[in-house]
């Protein structure tokens, strides 16, 4: 047999297990450039069908397979096994309730996303054609719109672990900024009103874990800073 990869995977079924445990697996190196998701799929399809995790696109687009890989949050589908120290420790995203194995309850995360009203809001009459943007205005959205809401950043943020019921967290604040910098959106004032809060926004202490965790290489810290600067400009 060829080269084997060793993994130790978090297992927990709240309905049966008193407490979580780590289970060890060995998976053959299936192909060059093999990703962690390939290894998890191999376990599920060939070794143990009860292993539960979310995945869909398999190429870093849908954001469903965020997990904690050797202590760092990331997407299994775009994380090559080659660079990982073995045994590869695979755990669910931290700070969220485990539904089963690697599947966490993301309701609160998406609830917070809803709180920032993530859609275009306008008060001027709808133009006959589309609302136009100059190339420069469009460029403002770069680094803001690419977020796939995988939750890797938010669940790596200590401030969110401690005050997550109120602190919106890096992913949602990045999205809040995405609508603030959109030249077509006309609800800036209302949006800033909704963000100006010691817990919702100012809980961010610039620890920068979020930036390290983001698999899309976005910078939520900078977005949070930009919101703070907008509030400062509005007050000064």
């Amino acid at each position, binding site marked *: 047999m060829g080269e084997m990869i060793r993994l130790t995977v978090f297992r927990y079924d709240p309905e049966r297990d008193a407490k979580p445990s780590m289970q060890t697996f060995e998976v053959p190196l299936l192909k060059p450039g093999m990703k962690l998701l390939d290894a998890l799929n191999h376990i599920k399809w060939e070794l143990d069908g009860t292993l539960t995790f979310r995945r869909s696109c398999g190429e870093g687009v849908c954001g469903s397979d965020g997990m904690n890989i050797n202590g760092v949050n990331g997407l299994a589908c775009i994380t090559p096994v080659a660079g990982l120290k073995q045994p590869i420790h695979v755990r669910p995203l931290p700070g969220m309730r485990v539904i089963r194995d690697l599947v966490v309850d993301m309701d*609160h995360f998406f609830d917070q996303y809803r*709180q920032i009203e993530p859609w275009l809001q306008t008060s001027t009459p709808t133009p006959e054609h589309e609302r136009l943007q100059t190339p420069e205005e469009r460029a403002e959205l770069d680094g803001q719109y690419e977020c796939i809401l995988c939750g890797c950043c938010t669940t790596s943020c200590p*401030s969110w672990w401690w005050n997550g019921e109120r602190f919106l967290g890096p992913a949602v604040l990045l999205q809040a900024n995405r609508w603030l910098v959109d030249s077509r959106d006309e609800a800036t004032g209302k949006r800033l*009103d909704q963000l100006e809060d010691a*817990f919702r926004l100012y809980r961010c202490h610039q620890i920068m874990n979020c930036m390290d965790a983001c698999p899309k290489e976005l910078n939520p810290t900078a977005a949070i800073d930009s919101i703070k600067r907008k509030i400062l400009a509005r007050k000064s």
Partner: protein
Amino acid sequence: MKVRKDQGAARSGFEDWYWQRLSAIVLALLLPLPFVLIIAVYSGRVDQFGLLDLLDHPLSRLLHTLLILALIVHAYMGLKVICEDYVPHIGWRVTLIGAMLVVMSGFGIWWLAMIWAWGG
């Protein structure tokens, strides 16, 4: 995690953030001065009377006042954030922050009284 009903924004937090940064700038500018003074005394460049004269000067009193105010504001804001992060129980949190406010402003008033009573 408990899913809480959206309570909206409290429209607070900006002031804390602003004062923490403003006091940090004042501290960065003024905090080296007392150290310069200490070095000057220990190196024998300034004697005891010279030191008292320096501290007595209205400008030094003013800078001294600014320094103490900035120090207290900065420490209070920092400790408040720590309480908000680590003390989950609202009752304890409010009590602790209130107690801090009383103790620190008491200390500030005492110090300011010293600055302005000298030689007066």
